[in-house]
């Protein structure tokens, strides 16, 4: 019993990511084709027929594997659609990794894509089962804004101090996104502008929320022992973890809305797989699920980067800035890269692909050791969290 590192390690040998944003001129087929073909090209010019199996991640942009086979004209292949809310991209990747590691296939592909901007709403419409009308209906910003008073109370910090840290996170991720040609929002925003914006939910303004975007990303995955056949700089997978909570926090008075226990659990599992004992120093950079700025704040503690109750201080001290000790969301994050649900987990891995190959341009982190990707779905108390750990070194 237990969770283990893959008995047969795997590596990413090709990746691509579309621009994210309000892509009025492209549909989900266009996005999936661009990401898939791009990933195959970067894996030494593979063809679609060279891939033995596909995992497609999409929350609301299509059902079944046929959402991928139709636009790509793939036939007679095992193609699976996966969905795990906003962690869908990581789920497609995780299951694809297991498939090559098991020996069932030699070359597999994980693809994530989402077309959100045709809905006509600025937010995200979650698919819901017809019900009795009693489940609370909160907007996503409202659900995450509940963290703020709860965290303030738990650690004796003022809501103003938390808001200052939230503003810093928004400022940092906008600043990082400004250096990313694929990002939805490519403009630095002064802290004064962020702090003064009108609220949407609790202490959250539009600057505290991720961008709703269209986009797709894809990865070609093979066993680590075969990786150098496809590229001279593979990205090796050291850990794959997923934690689904019981989803009962919102009905359990033991839960106080100040933490994201599923994120901590998935990180613990991943660190054990990768042999990491001190994440705060061993992780060189992290892509985390900054759906809202309080999420990123609390995640710094859940992932073991900051002490409990101290993340707000570390954030304000610049520890997670681009030039800080542990850059977080150096590609702009969900905040300014944008959040096409099914693609986001793979977008995070794409930044690792660039960073560990030395291709991240003026965002490049020097000599990264381990990179951490944390991707989650749901809301405080009702969460799934995936953690993936990668590096340029073969496990």
């Amino acid at each position: 019993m237990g969770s283990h590192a893959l008995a047969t390690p795997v590596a990413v040998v090709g990746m691509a990511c579309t621009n994210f944003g309000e892509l009025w001129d492209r549909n989900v087929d266009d996005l999936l084709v661009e990401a898939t073909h791009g990933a195959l090209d970067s894996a030494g010019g593979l063809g679609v027929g060279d891939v033995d199996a596909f995992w497609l991640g999409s929350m609301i942009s299509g059902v079944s594997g046929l959402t991928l086979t139709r636009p790509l004209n793939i036939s007679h292949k095992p193609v699976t659609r996966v969905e795990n809310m906003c962690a869908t991209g990581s789920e497609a990747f995780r299951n694809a990794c297991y498939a090559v590691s098991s020996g069932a296939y030699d070359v597999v592909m994980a693809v994530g894509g989402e077309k959100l901007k045709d809905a006509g709403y600025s937010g995200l419409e979650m698919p819901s089962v017809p019900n009795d009308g009693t489940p609370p209906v909160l907007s996503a910003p409202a659900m995450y804004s509940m963290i703020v008073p709860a965290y303030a109370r738990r650690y004796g910090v003022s809501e103003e101090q938390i808001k200052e840290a939230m503003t810093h996170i928004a400022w940092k991720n906008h600043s990082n996104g400004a250096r990313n040609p694929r990002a939805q929002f490519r403009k630095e925003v002064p802290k004064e502008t962020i702090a003064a914006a009108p609220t949407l939910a609790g202490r959250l303004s539009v600057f505290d929320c991720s961008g709703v975007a269209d986009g797709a990303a894809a990865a070609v995955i093979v066993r680590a022992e075969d990786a150098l056949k496809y590229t001279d700089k593979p990205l090796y997978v050291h850990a794959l973890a997923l934690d689904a909570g019981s989803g009962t926090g919102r009905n359990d008075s033991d839960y106080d809305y100040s933490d994201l226990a599923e994120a901590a659990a998935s990180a613990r599992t991943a660190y054990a797989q990768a042999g990491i004992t001190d994440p705060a120093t061993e992780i060189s950079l992290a892509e985390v699920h900054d759906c809202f700025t309080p999420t990123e704040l609390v995640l710094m503690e859940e992932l073991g980067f900051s002490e409990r109750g101290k993340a707000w201080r570390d954030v304000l001290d610049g520890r997670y800035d681009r030039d800080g000790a542990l850059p977080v969301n150096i590609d702009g994050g969900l905040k300014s890269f944008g959040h096409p649900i099914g693609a986001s987990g793979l977008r995070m891995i794409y930044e690792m692909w660039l960073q560990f190959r030395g291709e991240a341009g003026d965002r490049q982190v020097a000599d990264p050791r381990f990179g951490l990707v944390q991707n989650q779905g749901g809301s405080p108390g009702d969460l799934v969290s995936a953690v993936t750990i990668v590096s340029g070194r073969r496990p």
Partner: protein
Amino acid sequence: MVGIESYAVYLPVPRLDRADVARVVGGRGKGVRPVASYDEDATTMGVAAARAALRGTAGSESLWFATTRPAYLEKSNAATVAAASGLAAEVAAYDLSGALRGGAGALRAGLSAGASVVVASDVRYGLPGSADEAEGADAAAALVVGPDPVAELVGTASLTSEFLDRWRIPGEVRTRTWEERFGVEEYVPLVERVVDDVLGRCELKREQIDHVVISTPHARARATARRGFETAQLAASDAAGLGYAGAADLAVGLALALDAASPGDVVLAVSATDGADAFVFRVTEKHAAGARSGLADAPPGQPVSYGDFLNWRGLLPREPARRPDVKPPVPPAARRTAAWKFGFVAAQCGSCGYRNLPPRRVCLRCSATEGFEPVSMVDVPGRIATFTDDWLSESVQLPARVVAVDFDGGGRFECEMTDAVGRELAIGDRVSPTFRLASVAGNGVRNYVWKVRPHLEEED
């Protein structure tokens, strides 16, 4: 012996300032009137009154629900009131919807039925600037009828008269009226005659009556009819300073009179709508220690702007947020969970004691799969665990105040906090459950849910 065993009045918290109305539509106005909040209708207010009146009583065999602003037609609103009031399936629940006279009819039917609960609830408005808007009162009252009363029924009299004084087409906002003098000349003799009839039957003289209630939508007829009585006789029902509460007006007035009455007092309640109805009660010894209407302990009113009020009544629709359409509850799901949805009944785990809200097959604390006890959460106060303001909510009133509530004795639920417009919230604040509307969907389905409101110290 039959009569009123217990009674309660519910007044919504928002107060509309008539001067605020006058600033917009002209004319003059002073004082305030109670108005149903954005998440209230005749049904939810009726539930609040019925719940309070039924507390501690033996139960009823029938429920009679009167309103002129029914939430639904064809579908019974009395059934919703019965379910949310915790009444058993064996209770026969009937609607007297549409006519103002349903208020008197419900009382008469309830008294005839014996063990019953009479619920009258109304939302009074009209076109902006109308007399109903300025002089009405949104309110509900419930009277529990039974054999061991605080006010014994002595006698009744009724007259029915066909004439057109006021009328409203189903679905319309505006109530039309004929010219005022016509109504005076029709109504005043009807009141005189019905009072004579009932006093004759009860072998009482006018001066033997301690408290008089005169209820009619016709303001001038009311003023004229009142001249037949002493000010002291009318003082109790005047005390609250409420406007005309429609189908609920007679029951509200009767409750106010009973609040002021002592054992042995005689109460005459007269309603004049399309005829006239008169009821005489004698207050019993049981009333000395009996509970009152609850009006004295009602929460303080909260001002509502005229703009918000018009928006709530659908008379000043605002541009909605660019959000998905409101999803209605589906009837089979609402039917399956009726005890939870309408009765706010949680499942208390027999193994660990934790209250599961909503009820589940597997306890969320200890994973037990059997031995759950149904527990009504209706009278269980709680505390705010955390909260937020949601400007993207589908609630009519923005921002929606959303709270996670930890109930005394266990149980957590997230819901909207109502009666809290502009109120400063804090973790630990005390709250109490209340039956309200979450939303009304495009297909007209009204999503009734339990929310919380600020807890009142008087409730402890």
